[in-house]
């Protein structure tokens, strides 16, 4: 008989040391059957290391793990997996030209024997795939090619991929990143469904509202230590934040005043691309304009249109009264900056040093007749490391070793050195910790005070509401609403327009 209150995982006094540095100390943790136990903490607090120990990527340096009461030490990922633990990773790793059901079974293909030869059993796999999807209460055509489905559905496929192994324990690492409001909600429902089916869930997220909504208990990490275990009734955003930040006080950031001037600096005139349909809007000097919409609504496509990364099929983009031909070159010449959404893919040059990443775009500034002055590159990097408090060993450290928030600050520096006039920031705080987020908000405010215009694309409405002067809402590539941010119940109003309910 399974005891409903039995701890499926019990962790006692675990520590982890890397090269003499203890990144985790004395962690106690337990996971009950059929509960959602959330892990929170700033970047670098130790959550990731902890998860990696549970999933067998790292081995603990001290302490014990018990699975269903039995002591165990994971030496490899397969070992953890055979104990019924599976992880749904933050990144989506699907084979784009495989069908949905084929992706679900990558690595666990079902076979049948035909005349002694083992061949793929598509029929059985399809049957199982439908069962798994039904279990989640999700409708999805399993014969669709994976490249045809949206991000939220891809996430579902990732979950199914894990479910075909019938795990007891699932670790979710930032599952809702990159999802819009609506998709976020339905994914949370899916995860709750899994819990109701008796699966125990460890849930890692930066999104505290989400955690408040679905977590049964919350463990808070800070500086490699467990600082709090909150029971269901104790979970409030304030209680989590005060534990996360410790001594530091936190007020959710709200920008004080608008710096928008009269002069118009950028205008979209009836712009259409593959996804955008007849988009018209304008931005004033010093204004902060928010662009809201669910994933796939066309937020990123606006940035891509300005930079000519998507072909502008009709209409025109006007900067300072002049129509520009959108190419990356022209955008930069017209003092437009682009901080892209996918930091890893579109932002950083991973093997380049922090310094080289900073100077990438405006390299002319550090060169004379094409010859680089590395000393002055180094000095500029030092200046911005200091100015934006970027945590790094120094300008020579490779950017891939920095945390997400610090990488993002490096990308911002890349543009700040160039003295841009219009900043296009696509999901600028995606996947980064509260402190870094606030730093970036404050920086954006400073920029607007200097008369720079900023366009922020975000899936997280409060971010837009607290920062922007004005928000335009996109749906299926069209502008469906425009709001000034000085009104009540704005989030609700925008949601309605964004989701197209009424």
């Amino acid at each position, binding site marked *: 008989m399974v005891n409903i209150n039995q701890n499926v995982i019990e962790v006692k006094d675990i520590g982890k040391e890397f*090269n003499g540095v203890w990144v985790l100390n004395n962690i106690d943790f337990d996971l009950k059957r059929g509960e959602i136990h959330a892990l929170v903490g700033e970047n670098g607090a130790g959550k990731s290391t902890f998860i990696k120990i549970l999933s067998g990527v790292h081995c603990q340096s001290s302490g014990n793990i018990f699975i269903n009461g039995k002591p165990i030490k994971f030496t490899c990922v397969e070992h953890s997996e055979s104990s019924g633990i599976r992880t749904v990773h933050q990144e989506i790793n699907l084979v784009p030209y495989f069908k949905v059901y084929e992706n679900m079974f990558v690595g666990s293909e079902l076979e049948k024997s035909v005349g002694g030869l083992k061949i793929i059993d598509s029929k059985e796999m399809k049957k199982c795939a439908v069962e798994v999807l039904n279990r989640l209460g999700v409708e999805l055509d399993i014969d669709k090619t994976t490249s045809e489905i949206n991000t939220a559905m891809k996430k579902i496929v990732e979950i199914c991929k894990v479910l075909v192994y019938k795990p007891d324990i699932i670790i979710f690492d930032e599952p809702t990143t990159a999802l819009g409001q609506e998709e976020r909600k339905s994914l949370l429902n899916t995860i709750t469904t899994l819990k109701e089916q008796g699966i125990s869930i460890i849930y890692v997220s930066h999104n505290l509202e989400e955690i408040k909504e679905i977590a049964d208990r919350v463990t808070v990490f800070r500086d490699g230590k467990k600082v709090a275990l909150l029971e269901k009734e104790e979970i409030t955003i304030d209680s989590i934040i005060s534990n996360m930040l410790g001594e530091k006080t936190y007020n959710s950031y709200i920008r004080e005043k608008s710096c928008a001037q009269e002069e118009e600096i950028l205008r979209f005139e009836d712009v259409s691309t593959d996804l955008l349909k007849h988009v018209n809007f304008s931005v004033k000097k010093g204004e902060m304009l928010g662009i809201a919409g669910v994933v796939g609504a066309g937020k990123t496509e606006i940035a891509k249109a300005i*930079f000519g990364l998507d072909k502008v099929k009709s209409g025109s983009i006007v900067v300072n009264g002049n129509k520009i031909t959108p190419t*990356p070159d022209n955008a930069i010449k017209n003092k437009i900056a682009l901080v892209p959404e996918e930091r890893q*893919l*579109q932002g950083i040059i*991973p093997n380049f040093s922090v310094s080289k990443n900073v100077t*990438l775009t405006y390299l002319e500034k550090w060169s004379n007749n*094409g*010859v*680089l002055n590395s000393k002055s590159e180094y000095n500029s990097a030092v200046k911005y490391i200091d100015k934006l408090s970027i945590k790094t060993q120094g300008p020579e450290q490779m950017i891939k070793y920095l945390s997400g928030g610090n990488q993002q600050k490096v990308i911002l520096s890349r543009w700040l050195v160039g003295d841009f006039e219009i900043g296009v920031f696509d999901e600028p705080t995606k996947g980064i910790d509260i402190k870094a987020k606030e730093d970036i908000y404050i920086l954006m405010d400073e920029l607007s005070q200097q008369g720079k215009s900023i366009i922020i694309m975000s899936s997280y409405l409060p971010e837009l509401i607290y920062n922007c002067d004005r928000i335009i809402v996109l749906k299926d590539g069209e502008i469906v609403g425009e709001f000034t941010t000085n009104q009540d119940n704005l989030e609700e109003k925008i949601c309605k327009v964004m989701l197209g309910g009424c």
Partner: protein
Amino acid sequence: MIKGDKIQSRDWLHFSKKYGTALFGLVVFVFFSVFANNFFTINNQLMLLRQMSMLTVVALGFTFVMAAGGFDMSLGNAAGLINITFGAILIATNNFMLSLIGALTVGVLLGLTNGLLVAIIGLPDFIATFAVGTITVGLKMLITKGNPMSFPQDVSKAALFVGQGKIGSIPFPVILMLILVVLVAFVLEKTRLGRRIYAIGGNKVASQYGGINVKKYRLYTFIFSGVFLAIASVMLTSRLGSAQPLAGEDFMLDTIAAVFLSTTMFGEGEPKAIGTFIGAFIICMLTNGLTMLNIEYYFQYITKGLVVILSVLTSVYLGGKLKKS
């Protein structure tokens, strides 16, 4: 104490990952010096440098392509087309400069074709450059029917000097090679052009988002590759004293080997000019040393292949170990 050991072993790992390939070359060098008579002599070393000079020059061009994350499979086959262009013009005019310009023009055209197909139109580099290389095979055979073209008796001195001349006791090809190594090292590491090429190789999409004209710079790398191939072909033809349609076919595999060694040379995954130079040295040293040891010709190929696998393996293995520890 234990901690100290640990740090030491990690430092050693770092060091061997960073310099593993070069160290490996040094070990082979010492081995030949001890066991092969006449290997470690000034004469043989100069000969070795002269033998490697053409390979190094081709590989320097290829280094640009690989630094930008591309590949060029046309080099070996296209060498012959440049050889005969140079030879034909020389035979017709006996003017070295004209012949050189002809050879360089074919190199540029080759690079433009590759670059147009790969960088501008966006075909996969492996397939497109391989196909271009195949076309050059057809062209050179069509023109020569496979026969070499001998230089005239009174051939211009300059035409022979490029491959056979000496300044003092140093062969001219060696000097030319060294100048080009320094030049490429400078361009790749100290100029805007080089930085952007490395950026594209590091992350093509991010480079584009960062405002770099990726197509243009990738096109440049293929043109550089063609031009360096042309220089090497002229050196080769001058050395041989006749234009051979089939000469230079070995460039392809040896170049790939040299530049791959270069990418693992300093542990960062970026090919550098000096790395390419050492890579080419290792490849040619094997041929030279094994010949001195009277090892049969076909066995040299086997050894060369094994050495490349071993050195890349070492680097990858050490890199993996470093990540885990």
